[in-house]
C-alpha cells in the first residue's frame, strides 16, 4: 500500500540522493531530474488536495526509556495531513516547481549544477517535512534540515568569500533561534507529556493546563524563538539580507515559500497554544510589528535590487507574525499564502533582470528596462501591485486588509504602525520600479538587455496569474482551510480600507515625484543604509563579551586553577602515587591472577547467599 503523503515526503529525498550519488557528472541530467521531481511533487500535492486519500500511518522511530511516567516513550514520525498542511504543500510545490523551471536557464552556465539541484531537492524535502510534521520533534528535525540545506544553497558559490560568510551567518543566526525552539519543545514535552499536535490540541481543549503563568509564557516564547530565527524577525533578522548572496532562484524559494514561511507556518500550527497566554501573544505581536517597521525603513535606502526585496520580505513577515500575535492566525496564514506567489514572482522577475543584465544587481545601473523587457516589466509591475496592495484586483490587497482589520480590532498602536509600513512599502517598491525599469538606461548592460528566455517567461507568467487570483474568494476558499478566508464584515472595515488606500496613494505619489528621472539617489540616510548599525552592534557585543570572558577565564585558569588546584592536587597525587606505584609490577600475569581471584570471590559471594 503506497501512502501518498509518505511518497510526497520521500520523493525529493530520493531525488537528492539520486542526483548526488548517481548524476554527479551530468548537469543537464541533474537539472531535468530535479525539475521532473519537483513537478511530480506538485502533482502529488494537487491530487492530495483534491481528494486522494491522505492517510499516512505513523512510524515509531525510536523508543526511549522511562524518563518519567507521564512522558511518551516513543518518538514517532507521523504526518499530519489536514487542510492547513496540504494547502501549504501546494504553495511550496508550486513555487518549488517554478523555481526549478526558472533555474533551468538561470543556472544553465553553472559548473556545479548537480550540487545545486541536489540542494534544491533536499530543501524541498526538508520543507515538506516541516509542513507535514505531525509533532514538534519531527518538525524540529526538519527544521534543522532546512537550516542545513539553506546553508548549502546560500553558499552555493562558496568560492566567493561573501557567499561563504553569508551562509555561515545564516546558519549560526538560525542556531540561536533553534536553541530556543528546542528548549521550548522540551518544556512542552515535559509539561504536557506529548508533542503531537493533535494530542496537544486535545489537551488544551480539556482545560486545566499543566503549565501556567510565567512558565507558559516562557515556553511559548521559546517556541517563538525558533520562528524568530527561521522567519528572520528582529533581533535575528540580520542573516536574511546577507542571504541574497545565493543564486536568485534560491532567494525566491527561501523568501517565498520555504524557509522563512516555515516560521510563520509553525506559529500558525501552534496558534492554539499562543492563544492561551496574552503576554506572550502581545510580545509576539510587537516583535512582528517592530520588524515590519524596521525592515520597511531599511528597504527605502537599498540599492541592490535583491536587498530591497529581501527587506520587503522581512517587513511582510513582520506583518504575519504580528497577525499571529494578535490572535488572527487565519489572516496571517492567508497573507503567507498570497505573499508566497507574488514574492516568488518578484524574486524571479529580479532574477530575470539580473540574468539579462549580466549579473548586475545595482538598480542605479539599470533603468529603461521596461522597453527592452516588456514581459518581465509587466509581470514585475503586477507583482509590485500585489505587494503594495492595489485595491480589489490584487491578492495582496485582500490579505493585507485582513491583517489590518484584525490589528485595528486588537491594538490601535500596532494598527498605525502597520498603516505606516504600508505607506513605506508603496514608497520603496515604487522607487524600485521607477529606478530600475523607467527612465533612461544608465549602463551598457542595461542598454543591451533583451527579453528573458522562454522557461523564465513561462514561470513568471504562471506566478503572475497566481498572484492575481490568489486573493479571490473562489480560488482561495478552494484551497485554504475552512474559515481562513476573511469575511470583511467588521464595522470598522471601511475606515481601515480608507486608511490603507490613502497610505498607498501617498507612498506611490511621493516616491514617483522624488525618483522620476533621477540619475542618483537624492536621499542618502547613512543609518538606514547600514541597517541601523545592528550588525555592527552585534559584532561589537560579541567582541566585548568574548574578549572579556576570555580575559576572565584566562586569569581564573592561570592563577586559581593552575596555581592552586592543579599545583596542589598534583603534589598530593604524586605523594599518593609513589605509594601505589609499588603495587603495579607491570606484569599482565599478575593482574590476571588478581582478576581470577576476583572471579573466585564473586562466585563464592553469590553462590553462598
Amino acid at each position, binding site marked *: 500500500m503506497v501512502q501518498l503523503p509518505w511518497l510526497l515526503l520521500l520523493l525529493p529525498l530520493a531525488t537528492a540522493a539520486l542526483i548526488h550519488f548517481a548524476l554527479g557528472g551530468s548537469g543537464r541530467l541533474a537539472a531535468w531530474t530535479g525539475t521532473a521531481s519537483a513537478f511530480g511533487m506538485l502533482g502529488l500535492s494537487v491530487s492530495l488536495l483534491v481528494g486522494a486519500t491522505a492517510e499516512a500511518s505513523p512510524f515509531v522511530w525510536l523508543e526511549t526509556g522511562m524518563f518519567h511516567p507521564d512522558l511518551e516513550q516513543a518518538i514517532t514520525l507521523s504526518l499530519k495531513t489536514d487542510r492547513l498542511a496540504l494547502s501549504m504543500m501546494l504553495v511550496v510545490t508550486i513555487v518549488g516547481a517554478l523555481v526549478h523551471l526558472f533555474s533551468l536557464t538561470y543556472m544553465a552556465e553553472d559548473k556545479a549544477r548537480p550540487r545545486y539541484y541536489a540542494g534544491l531537492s533536499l530543501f524541498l524535502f526538508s520543507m515538506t517535512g516541516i509542513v507535514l510534521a505531525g509533532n514538534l520533534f519531527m518538525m524540529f528535525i526538519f527544521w534543522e534540515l532546512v537550516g542545513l540545506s539553506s546553508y548549502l544553497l546560500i553558499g552555493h558559490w562558496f568560492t566567493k568569500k561573501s557567499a561563504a560568510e553569508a551562509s555561515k551567518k545564516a546558519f549560526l543566526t538560525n542556531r540561536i533561534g533553534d536553541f530556543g525552539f528546542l528548549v521550548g519543545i522540551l518544556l512542552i514535552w515535559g509539561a504536557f507529556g506529548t508533542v503531537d499536535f493533535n494530542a496537544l490540541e486535545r489537551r488544551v481543549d480539556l482545560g486545566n493546563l499543566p503549565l501556567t503563568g510565567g512558565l507558559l509564557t516562557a515556553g511559548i516564547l521559546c517556541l517563538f524563538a525558533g520562528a524568530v530565527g527561521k522567519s528572520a524577525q528582529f533581533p535575528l533578522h540580520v542573516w536574511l539580507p546577507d542571504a541574497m548572496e545565493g543564486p536568485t532562484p534560491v532567494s525566491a524559494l527561501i523568501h517565498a515559500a520555504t524557509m522563512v514561511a516555515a516560521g510563520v507556518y509553525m506559529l500558525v500550527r501552534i496558534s492554539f497554544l499562543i492563544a492561551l497566554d496574552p503576554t506572550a501573544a502581545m510580545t509576539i505581536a510587537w516583535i512582528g510589528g517592530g520588524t515590519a517597521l524596521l525592515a520597511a525603513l531599511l528597504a527605502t535606502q537599498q540599492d541592490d535590487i535583491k536587498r530591497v526585496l529581501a527587506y520587503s520580505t522581512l517587513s511582510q513577515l513582520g506583518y504575519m507574525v504580528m497577525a499571529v500575535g494578535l490572535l488572527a492566525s487565519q489572516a496571517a496564514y492567508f497573507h503567507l499564502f498570497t505573499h508566497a506567489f507574488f514574492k516568488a514572482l518578484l524574486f524571479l522577475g529580479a532574477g530575470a533582470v539580473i540574468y539579462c543584465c549580466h549579473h548586475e544587481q545595482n538598480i542605479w545601473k539599470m533603468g529603461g528596462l521596461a522597453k527592452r523587457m516588456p514581459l518581465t516589466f509587466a509581470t514585475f509591475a503586477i507583482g509590485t501591485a500585489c505587494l503594495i496592495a492595489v485595491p480589489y484586483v490584487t491578492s495582496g490587497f485582500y490579505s493585507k486588509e485582513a491583517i489590518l482589520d484584525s490589528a485595528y480590532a486588537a491594538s490601535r498602536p500596532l494598527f498605525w504602525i502597520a498603516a505606516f509600513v504600508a505607506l513605506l512599502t508603496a514608497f520603496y517598491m515604487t522607487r524600485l520600479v521607477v529606478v530600475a525599469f523607467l527612465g533612461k538606461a544608465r549602463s551598457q548592460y542595461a542598454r543591451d538587455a533583451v527579453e528573458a528566455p522562454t522557461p523564465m517567461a513561462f514561470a513568471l507568467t504562471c506566478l503572475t496569474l497566481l498572484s492575481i487570483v490568489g486573493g479571490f474568494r473562489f480560488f482561495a476558499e478552494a484551497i485554504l482551510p475552512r474559515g481562513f478566508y476573511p469575511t470583511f464584515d467588521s464595522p470598522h472595515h471601511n475606515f481601515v480600507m480608507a486608511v490603507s488606500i490613502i497610505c498607498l496613494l501617498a507612498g506611490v505619489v511621493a516616491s514617483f515625484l522624488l525618483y522620476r528621472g533621477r540619475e542618483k539617489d537624492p536621499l542618502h540616510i547613512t543609518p538606514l543604509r547600514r541597517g541601523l548599525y545592528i550588525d555592527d552592534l552585534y559584532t561589537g557585543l560579541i567582541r566585548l563579551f568574548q574578549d572579556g570572558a576570555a580575559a576572565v577565564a584566562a586569569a581564573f585558569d592561570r592563577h586559581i586553577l593552575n596555581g592552586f588546584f592543579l599545583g596542589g592536587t598534583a603534589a598530593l597525587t604524586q605523594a599518593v602515587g609513589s605509594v*601505589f*606505584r*609499588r*603495587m*603495579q*609490577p*607491570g*606484569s*599482565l*600475569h599478575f593482574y*590476571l*591472577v588478581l582478576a*581470577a581471584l576476583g572471579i573466585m570471590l564473586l562466585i563464592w559471594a553469590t553462590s553462598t547467599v
Partner: protein
Amino acid sequence: MTLEHYLIAAGILFCTGLFGMIVRRNILVIFMCLELILASATLTLVAFSRFRLTSGLPDIDAQMLVFFVITVAAAEVAVGLAIIVSLYRSTQSVHMEDLHTLKG
C-alpha cells in the same frame, strides 16, 4: 542431556582458557585463550536459552546476546591484533616479559 552437562563442559573450557592466560607468555596465544573464554561464555548462554523455553521456543533473547557478542568480538579481535602489530613494530617482541613499559 541436562543443562548441567553443558555448563560443566563450558566450565572446563573456561578453566582451560584461564589456565592458558596465566601460563603462556606469547601475547597472541593469550589472546587466543581469551577467545576460548568468550566461547565458553557463549556456550553457557546458548545452553540457558535452550533449556529455558519461553512459550514453547528457546529463549531467543539469549541467542541475540550471543549474536551481538560474536559481532563485537570480531571487532575486538581486529582492533586487538592491530594493537599487537603496532606493539611488535615498536618492540620487536610479542613476549609478555619484554612488555613492561607500564610498570610503575
